[in-house]
């Protein structure tokens, strides 16, 4: 029993450092890039140009209709056979970015559409162009609607980064797998990994709660 505790303690730092150097950065970078993709796709989706909105619709449908693990495999193991080889980290970032882009696009689109049409017109009458109205008036209001569901997307993403272990990114869960492979203590190490994910998500949920109550104050 003592040796189990010792193993749990010894493996804690390698796993936490995996979280700090890989899991969390991977999630943050992919989320930030994913939001940019999502905003672009959301705007394309709203466009009155049928071709443009059709492309956005197709993208969203493919991303949401296929497993993230398959998306990762296509990029990392699939592309090399057509001559495109990408390292594990960039592969993971690309896959997660595209994935967030698809899911968050729908959230952002709904949030933009939830802003009353009168706000656009009020922007126009004070002389603003469509683009400026969007950035100065509509998006700040849409953000309030979008932030709660986007925080959920981020929390899911943090957990989903564990899939990057499948394409050789040494993030937290891969550390757990490596230690388990040499010690055979699968239950202990996977439970420990689960516990660390859980703690990270608890922290993120708490942050989310605070952000939402501040947003509510602002709106009321």
């Amino acid at each position, binding site marked *: 029993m003592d040796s189990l505790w010792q193993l749990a303690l010894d493996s804690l730092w390698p796993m936490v450092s995996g979280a700090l150097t890989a899991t969390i950065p991977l999630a943050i970078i992919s989320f930030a890039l994913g939001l940019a993709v999502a905003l672009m796709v959301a705007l394309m989706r709203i466009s009155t140009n049928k071709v443009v909105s059709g492309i956005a619709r197709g993208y969203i449908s493919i991303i949401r209709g296929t497993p993230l693990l398959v998306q990762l495999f296509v990029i990392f193991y699939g592309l090399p056979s057509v001559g495109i080889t990408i390292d594990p980290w960039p592969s993971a970032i690309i896959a997660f970015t595209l994935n967030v882009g698809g899911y968050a696009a729908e959230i952002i689109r709904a949030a933009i559409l939830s802003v*009353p049409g*009168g*706000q656009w*017109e*009020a922007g*126009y*009458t*004070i*002389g*603003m*162009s469509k683009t*400026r109205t969007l950035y*100065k*008036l509509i998006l*700040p*209001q849409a953000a*309030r609607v979008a932030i709660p569901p986007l925080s959920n997307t981020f929390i899911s993403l943090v957990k989903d980064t564990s899939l990057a272990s499948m394409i050789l990114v040494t993030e937290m869960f891969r550390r757990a797998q490596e230690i388990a492979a040499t010690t055979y203590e699968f239950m202990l190490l996977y439970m420990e990994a689960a516990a660390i994910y859980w703690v990270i998500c608890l922290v993120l949920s708490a942050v989310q709660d605070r952000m939402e109550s501040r947003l509510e104050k*602002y*709106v*009321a």
Partner: protein
Amino acid sequence: MSPKALTPLLNVTDLHKSFGTNKVLRGIDFSVRSGEVLALIGPSGSGKTTALRCLNGLESPDSGVVSFAGGPEVAFQPGLPAKKAQVLRDRSAMVFQGHHLFPHLTVLQNVTIGPLQVQRRPREEVMARANELLERVGLEQKSSDYPSSLSGGQQQRVGIVRALMLQPDLLLFDEPTSALDPELVGEVLSVIKELAQEGWSMVLVTHELAFARDVADTVVFMDDGVVVEHGPAAQVLGNPTHERTKAFMQRLLHPF
């Protein structure tokens, strides 16, 4: 009524607009002189809002000309890019029925964002003017509040200041009090009346006939997408010549 200059300000010629098969404007003509208050009245659905929105480039009529003295002049035709009508906003500013204030900005930010960010006027001048106008409408205490904490009447007064801040030559009001509780109507109408007395030119869509009679120089009565009667306020409201105008006023004065 104060003597008004006779210089023309706005000319509207033969506006036509359909939504699908619904012909909403079927040849609207009227003009506004500098300093004139024109009240646009008519039954619900007669096209008043649509006509007013055309003056601000918010609606693109199928044909017709909106022309300000000294420019711009916009000749509408199908497929005219929305951008071409934007220039009308250099001369006119709109006050909406539902105010449409920006909820994420304070009162002060609401009224200064246009002058600062679009017109790029000097900050000091803009702030001084904003404070002056907010004080004029009795809202100097509210400048750092958000719109949601104001009453409907206060919100509409901010809406009016937001329009004034753009330094337009023509103010456009679309039923500025019809979304308000009855006890809040007076405070908004009295601001509009003051502006009229100061010589602001305006087109005012309203159902408040007593108010129109009080502040308007001229009245345009629209029905079914055409101008039925256009003349001095006292004449159109007091002694209408057309049957449809008479019937409309009978209904408004004696609804039951």
